[in-house]
């Protein structure tokens, strides 16, 4: 009786002590329940030992008890060392290698930058994911949120079963659906609809932590493509780019410089975009743009080559580019690659890749950019400002800058490079330039640098050309660089590769029979042979 009592009292005491200890590790506080667990556990353990003092004493005096004690101590020490090593490993949740092709399991550099900046900005972000515990959303949501939390301790998250906790609707003050996630920082709250993705989550965090918004003006009145197309299905507009920018907290509007009453370029203009003007700007408009840039303005110019021999195109801004170290060549890029030889692509659609070390092209080194009808650009010296130019995109070595526009306009004409007058590839088709602001008053206003980006193709960022793995992140990076938040650049392509596969009937039969019948059958045959031989020769 005593032995049984001793065993159970001691065992129960040890179990209570363990549960109490683990609860303390989890909750980091000794509340009434944890205190009771630890107290009752210790009391039961002592009671068990005390009530069976004689038995304990007899066993303890035996040789086996001493050896058991030694073995127990040794085991405890080994377990403690192993536990300690594991605890160290747990402290490094980001020590991992992502073996997927496009590193889709890792957080994008932009996300990591945003999260690391939370500490510098002294901001705490709380994420609330509303799901039901038995739904399939739990694992993907928690996996993603844990990755975010592993990067920054300034990010807290909670997963709430909104069916069991209806009070969450009042707390959040919004309608709650299955899979809805809320991101909150200070007084700002953003709502994300299911499915939750890294892009949505990071953009929502950016929206709640940014104190100011960036206003982007697209010029109009010179034949530029519209921001909102008349035909929603049309790819010839910047509607896709506008949506992508609005996702990143930018406010996008149109601007007719000539029609402005007071300021040709409004004071709240953070970024000016001149996207594919078909005709020249009037001299006062050019002067307004020049003045805006001189005072630390930021601008993106998307320009086209003059394809018509009788129409030199919009060249009025070229002198402005030259002041910032960028020259526009009077040529159009022609590239004869394999796709062109197979008749699948026009020679006027060069395939470009990123170049230079600008943060704009970070994470895009493996992306390919098809620019339909592009003009080559050059970096040139300028005496007007102290500028730093950085090439962003370049064509291949098989390309050249064709200057015979008449030949290009003739139907069926073949063009070839004139080695004397035409430059061979690689040709730069996008350049970023940064110039120091000279005026002390402007500097005092916080306008320290002028930044411009010139892209030699206005179609590069139209809705029809925006690609999730190339042009879209490039455009977002350009705008982020031009804005005040250039430390948050670098979204790599995270979309999974399309590797769909349609099996024919024969392949389906192989897929069905080899793993389910042939493979187990081979093992069965081996078993029969081995067992037969064993019986025969035993």
């Amino acid at each position, binding site marked *: 009786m005593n032995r049984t009592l001793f065993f159970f009292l001691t065992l129960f005491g040890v179990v209570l002590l363990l549960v109490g200890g683990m609860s303390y590790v989890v909750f980091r506080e000794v509340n009434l329940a944890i205190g009771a667990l630890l107290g009752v556990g210790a009391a039961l353990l002592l009671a068990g030992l005390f009530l069976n003092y004689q038995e304990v004493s007899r066993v303890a005096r035996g040789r*086996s008890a001493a050896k058991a004690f030694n073995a127990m101590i040794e085991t405890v020490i080994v377990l403690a060392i192993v536990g300690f*090593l594991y605890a160290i490993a747990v402290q490094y949740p980001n020590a991992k290698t992502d073996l997927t*092709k496009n590193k889709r399991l890792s957080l994008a550099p932009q996300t990591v930058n945003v999260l690391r900046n939370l500490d510098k900005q002294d901001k705490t972000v709380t994420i609330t994911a509303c799901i039901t515990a038995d739904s399939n959303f739990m694992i993907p949501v928690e*996996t993603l949120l844990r990755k975010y939390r592993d990067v920054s301790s300034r990010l807290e998250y909670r*997963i709430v*079963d909104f069916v069991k906790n209806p009070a969450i609707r009042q707390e959040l003050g919004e309608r709650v659906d299955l899979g809805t996630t809320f991101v909150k920082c200070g007084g700002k709250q953003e709502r994300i609809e299911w499915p939750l993705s890294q892009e949505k989550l990071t953009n929502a965090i950016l929206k709640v932590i940014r104190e100011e918004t960036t206003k982007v003006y697209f010029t109009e009145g010179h034949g530029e493509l519209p921001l909102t197309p008349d035909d929603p299905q049309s790819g010839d507009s910047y509607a896709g780019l506008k949506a992508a920018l609005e996702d990143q907290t930018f406010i996008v509007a149109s601007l007719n410089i000539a029609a402005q009453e007071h300021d040709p370029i409004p004071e709240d203009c953070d970024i000016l975009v001149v996207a594919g003007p078909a005709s020249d700007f009037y001299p006062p408009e050019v002067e307004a743009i020049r003045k805006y840039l001189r005072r630390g303005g930021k601008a993106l110019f998307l320009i086209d080559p003059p394809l018509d021999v009788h129409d030199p195109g919009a060249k009025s801004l070229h002198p402005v580019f030259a002041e910032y170290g960028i020259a526009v060549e009077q040529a159009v890029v022609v590239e004869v690659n394999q796709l062109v030889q197979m008749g699948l692509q026009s020679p006027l659609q060069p395939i470009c890749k990123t170049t230079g070390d600008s943060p704009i092209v970070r994470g895009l080194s493996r992306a390919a950019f098809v620019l339909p009808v592009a003009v080559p650009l050059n970096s040139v010296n300028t005496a007007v400002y102290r500028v730093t130019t950085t090439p962003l995109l370049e064509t291949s070595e098989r390309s050249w800058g064709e200057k015979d526009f008449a030949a290009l306009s003739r139907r069926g004409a073949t063009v070839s490079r004139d080695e004397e007058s035409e430059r061979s590839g690689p040709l730069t088709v996008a350049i970023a330039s940064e110039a120091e602001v000279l005026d002390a008053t402007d500097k005092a206003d916080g306008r320290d640098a002028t930044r411009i980006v010139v892209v030699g193709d206005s179609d590069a960022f139209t809705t029809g050309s925006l690609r999730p793995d190339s042009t879209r992140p490039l455009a977002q990076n350009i705008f982020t660089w031009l804005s005040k938040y250039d430390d948050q650049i670098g979204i790599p392509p995270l979309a999974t590769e399309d*590797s769909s*596969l349609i099996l024919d009937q024969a392949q389906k039969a192989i897929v069905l029979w080899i*793993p389910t019948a042939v493979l187990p059958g081979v093992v069965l045959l081996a078993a029969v042979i081995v067992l037969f031989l064993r019986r025969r020769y035993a």
Partner: protein
Amino acid sequence: MRNFWTIYKREIKYYATSPVAYVVFIIYLFLVGMIFARAFMQFSDLSAQIQHPMFRQYYGQQNLNITEGVIQAFFGVAGFFLIFVLPLLTMRLLAEEKRMGTSELLFSYPVRDSQVLLGKYFASLTMVFILFLLTSVCPAMVAAWGRPEPGVILAGYLGLFLLSAGFLAFGLFVSACTENQVIASVVPFGVMFLLWLLGNYLLQDMPQNIRMFLYEFSATEHYRPFVEGSIGLKDVAYNLMFAFISLYLALQVMGSRKWRGQQ
């Protein structure tokens, strides 16, 4: 070292001539193969459907990826079914020696406990390695017709091997504790199943901080990253330490026969 090899070869020979290993192999290959074939054919059907503009509109810009659709499904079930078959490989390793009384004979030879334990452990690990070699026909078929990501396949097999290393060591520990083969198979099965469920279902209703704490003990939580294509220090450490602790405890249990019952 020679003793280790003697015991290792003896166990491999036993596995090769025992019907248990063959039955385990056949059942495992059939189950994993069946689910792999189903996943592969479903992926093919979905690939055909998505060509249709109506479905393309439904799926939007989302790409169909064969690694996520087939390879990850394969490694998911391959890991799960190990719970059922590994105890059958380890249950007799030490329990049978005890029941038959051959352990006394074995330990009367000039052989250390660690050599006996490691010889048996690596023999069982070799059998699992052979089993994985046989399953590699499945990803090989995917590679023959599609474009799976080799890194994910590599990570998946590493995860499977580490999971097996931990589970086999635990099975060996339980086998060292009892002479009853039923207990030696049921207890590891129960514990492995519990560790598996910890990451999937058992914790979903629990408060978040308890869930986060218990995740550290979950086998699924430390296997899923391998299936997805990531090799993490924490996940490798979990499996290696689980194996180490189990083997160490098994060694202590084997060593205890020398002093148990002494007054």
